[in-house]
């Protein structure tokens, strides 16, 4: 007998005998995979902090030192760098599964999920600045400057965020502090996310939110299925880390930050490009910033939708329409600012927001 309230009983109740729907598919693997990558990022990050120096004169060189001289430092660095892409990639797949199967009707879990998305994006942005390459510096400059769009106090807020009158040494050290802190905040919110999912009758399933008639224990069925998912996805991840390590990175970030030389094309990592396209497409700075923020926060409004648990053909059609719209916005975010691309960003940005309107009706 396991004592009630002990750690073992909590773990056993959450991952052992947890009653789970009998019919959840591989689309339900993404949540646990995100957890795997969070652990991977924390562990590789801890190893990187042993050699990284958060000072503008040494940050870039410390990263070069990690890659070239620290034993297996290159493994830690490229695992951490590509791990961020995989972490956010699986978050997007997880959100896509949630929208397709209308999981936003589990309101508490969904809203905690939106907080997790925002925290993860913020953590990734802060982390990208730390190597202090050209794209790190100029990406930080562009995005933090967005805050100056706030009426009246915007400029003061930006100077406060920077710790000076431009992105500099105080900015780097505070970004390092928050980049170290936020993953633990993400872990706390992830536990809260699980609490709400387990407390609302358990996981949804492909046929809707209710599955109380037939449940099977989490272990061994979904425990082993999740482990299979870990093996497959982590193998793909390691393949990218060891063979195609620079697939997701920008060549400009292999040069040290130079405040006097602006890169020709400043763009963030791929997982921010859809929002970047929406931001750039709007001529008005404040409206652009509001659109950027809303492109992420709009997920929080989905629980207000008309409650219909059926997955009508129209819901599916709009879902795939939205997915390809997201992909084309990602492509446009990486394109230079030219007339046709700008026009397309405006049109597809509008369609991105309209898709949520249709989700709420169908």
């Amino acid at each position: 007998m396991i004592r009630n309230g002990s750690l073992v009983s909590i773990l056993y109740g959450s991952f052992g005998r947890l009653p789970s729907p009998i019919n959840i598919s591989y689309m339900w693997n993404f949540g646990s995979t995100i957890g795997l990558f969070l652990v991977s990022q924390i562990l590789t990050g801890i190893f990187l902090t042993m050699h990284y120096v958060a000072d503008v004169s040494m940050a870039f060189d410390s990263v070069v030192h990690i890659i070239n001289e620290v034993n297996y430092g290159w493994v830690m660095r490229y695992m951490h760098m590509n791990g961020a892409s995989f972490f956010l990639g699986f978050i997007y797949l997880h959100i896509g599964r949630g929208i397709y199967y209308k999981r936003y009707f589990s309101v508490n879990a969904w809203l905690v999920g939106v907080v997790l998305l925002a925290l993860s994006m913020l953590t990734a942005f802060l982390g990208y600045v730390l190597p202090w390459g050209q794209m790190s510096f100029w990406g930080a400059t562009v995005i933090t400057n967005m805050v100056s769009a706030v009426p009246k106090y915007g400029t003061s807020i930006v100077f406060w965020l920077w710790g000076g009158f431009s992105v500099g040494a105080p900015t780097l050290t505070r970004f390092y502090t928050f980049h170290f802190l936020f993953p633990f905040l993400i872990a706390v919110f992830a536990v809260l996310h699980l609490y709400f999912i387990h407390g609302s009758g358990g996981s949804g399933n492909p046929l809707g939110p209710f599955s109380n008639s037939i449940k099977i224990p989490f272990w061994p069925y979904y425990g082993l299925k999740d482990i299979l998912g870990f093996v497959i996805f982590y193998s793909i991840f390691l393949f990218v880390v060891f063979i195609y390590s620079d697939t997701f990175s920008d060549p400009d970030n292999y040069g040290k930050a130079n405040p006097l030389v602006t890169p020709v094309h400043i763009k963030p990592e791929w997982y921010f490009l859809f929002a970047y396209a929406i931001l750039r497409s709007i001529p008005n700075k404040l409206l652009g910033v509001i659109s950027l923020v809303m492109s992420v926060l709009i997920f929080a409004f989905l629980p207000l939708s008309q409650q219909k648990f059926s997955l009508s053909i129209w819901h599916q059609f709009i879902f795939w329409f939205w997915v390809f719209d997201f992909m084309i916005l990602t492509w446009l975010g990486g394109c230079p600012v030219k007339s046709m691309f700008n026009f397309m960003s405006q049109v597809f940005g509008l369609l991105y927001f309209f898709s949520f309107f249709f989700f709420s009706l169908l």
Partner: protein
Amino acid sequence: MRLSDLRPHGFGHLGVHVKNQVEYTLSAFEQNPIKGVVAKGVPNILRRFRDKFLVVAIPAAVFYGFYDFGSRAQLAMDRKNPADFENDV
């Protein structure tokens, strides 16, 4: 005091209270774990693909069309149009 107050609470005991658990078992000698994996599995894959093909392919084709048109149009805007210089001496 209600009977439900005696039930354990908190993390590990959230959600539904499971009762009337039924366990089905079958002898290992009575099972073939890969029975029908090709004969039934492959037609099932084809059926599931056919069911979803149009709902995925139509938006994919539409957006690919926009991507193709947009990149070609921008490329054309970046270049000179030979027709504009036809009558040059």
